[in-house]
């Protein structure tokens, strides 16, 4: 492929990816008059922080941000811990009647139906457990939905680690769990990091269950909070854009911090050593 064509494609995909972001960021910085100007002022407008002030000071978006962070981080941690242990067991132990293989498939099958079919059952369950409108309900649901993903990702990474290493650790006097923590986990760390990024993104952006299970500012997450600014009387484009622009930042920072692991993690299965 010629160089020019390569750059053209690169440019087009960049435009496609970044245009909405550009639009959101500029809207968040424009005064309301400029929002509806035609043609829109692409670059020449007087920037203002009034929407940011309205969102995070006048309205409760700061609280949504904190809720989102708590829910995303805790559910990611829970999914990683539970899923990693399950994946290790499935990767290493042969269960009778091929149960290890069947269990893996069964775990995967929980991701095969559309999430929305569980919305009503989950709502009823959370109601009976008196967990509606709490962060705990979201943490539980997000953990459950990330678990299959973690199990399958981590199982692949564990399969790559030679058994000899754990056996050596056992003979050296370490326990199973000690060998897992001290020998195996450091070796699958890139995979763990990649998995963590995906879980975090999924939980951070999740909208459906947050909408169904939360009602008040006490447990509302950022995506639900933003969508809530579309009302029958007005659509607060400025506030929504400001909140959206802020919502991107933590994931962007985290993904950049994990970038070197991300690439290694994703290619870990492909190349040995």
């Amino acid at each position, binding site marked *: 492929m010629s160089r020019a064509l390569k750059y053209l494609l690169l440019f087009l995909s960049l435009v496609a990816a970044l245009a909405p972001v550009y639009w959101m960021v500029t809207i968040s910085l424009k005064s309301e008059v400029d929002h509806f100007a035609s043609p829109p002022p692409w670059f020449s407008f007087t920037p203002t922080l009034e929407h940011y002030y309205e969102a995070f000071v006048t309205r409760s978006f700061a609280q949504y941000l904190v809720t989102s962070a708590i829910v995303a981080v805790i559910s990611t941690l829970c999914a990683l811990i539970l899923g990693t242990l399950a994946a290790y067991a499935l990767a290493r132990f042969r269960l009778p009647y091929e149960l290890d293989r069947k269990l893996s498939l069964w775990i995967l099958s929980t991701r095969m139906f559309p999430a929305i079919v569980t919305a009503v059952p989950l709502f009823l369950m959370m109601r009976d457990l008196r967990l509606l409108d709490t962060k705990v309900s979201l943490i539980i649901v997000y953990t459950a939905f990330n678990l299959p993903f973690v199990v399958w990702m981590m199982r692949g990474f564990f399969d790559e680690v030679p058994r000899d290493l754990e*056996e050596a*650790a*056992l*003979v050296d*006097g*370490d326990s199973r769990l*000690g060998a897992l923590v*001290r020998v195996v986990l450091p070796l699958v760390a890139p995979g763990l990091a990649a998995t963590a990024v995906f879980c975090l993104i999924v939980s951070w952006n999740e909208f459906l269950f947050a909408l169904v299970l939360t009602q008040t500012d006490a447990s509302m997450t950022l995506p639900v909070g933003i969508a809530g600014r579309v009302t029958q009387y007005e659509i607060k484009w400025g506030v929504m854009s400001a909140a959206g622009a802020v919502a991107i930042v933590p994931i962007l920072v985290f993904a950049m911090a994990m970038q070197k692991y991300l690439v290694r993690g994703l290619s870990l299965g492909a190349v040995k050593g």
Partner: protein
Amino acid sequence: MSIRFQNVSKTFGDTLVVDDLSLEIDDGEFVVLLGPSGCGKTTTLRMLAGLETVTSGDIYIQDERINDVQTQHRDLAMVFQSYALYPHMTIAENIAYPLRVRKLDKDERTKRVNQVARMLEIEPLLSRKPRQLSGGERQRVALARAIVREPRAYLMDEPLSNLDARLRVQMRGELKRLQHQLGTTTIYVTHDQAEAMTLATRVAVMSRGRLQQFDTPLTIYNRPANRFVAEFVGSPSMNFIEGKIENNIFVNGSIRLPVTKPNRDQITIGIRPEHIRVFTEPQDGAMPANVYVTELMGNETFVFLSVGNNRLIARAPADFRAELESLVWLQIESEKAHFFDPQTGLSI
């Protein structure tokens, strides 16, 4: 520590891998489990280490039954064929690992690691990572990790098989010295009979999951219990000729050898290559043979011969020269021959 296998069997699914193995190893012995791949020797070692469960039978260390003791509580040290060094740790951390999990304090750990590193001459490598090391160096580190503590026994699973030939011979010697110095019971698995002969105080020859013979290297070589042991130990391999014994003469076609055995219709005679002498000129009592091929090894020559339908290998001096298909004469030292039952393979 003494180690005892008592009627130990192991099956994987329907496959019998180790079949009713009984073995008593004395304290301080260097025992080599020798056999071709798939003979169950590695499985035996892994059962002792607790990495495989025992299907039936018992394993004892110093009269303590260890079948149900978990690997980490058996207090054994193992050197793996792949070395199994922890890739994310430095060499020093690798060697210190068994001490770390035993919660020794840091000063003591450093002291012990340095001591072992000095002994195995790997001090300059301590701050490196395993991937920066050559095969021979990794081998030493794996060894260092095993001897840094004082386990009840060392288990070694083909530890030299990934080294090149020169290094293998060198490490073989060092292993022997090391074990002599430490005096710790060692069980060593290999398919290389040269390693078995040089290292072992006693060799356990295994085939298809069964123990064939358990004795000193010299006895294994000089008085093999059956045809399998006779064939597996010794290089080049022992010659076998089928035939019968009539009036103290072993007969197979043109081959006639004086023996002192009762008459038998069917018998297998085994002759080591060094017990066949080859001459280019006719000799008294020598039988004619054709040269199939000769292999000059430097210090000696292997002569492959055909006598009737039989193929024989003889060891000749390095200066032996003969054209292919040329006629030569053999003298077989039949008083050093071994006799086997053709049906059971057992030595007679």
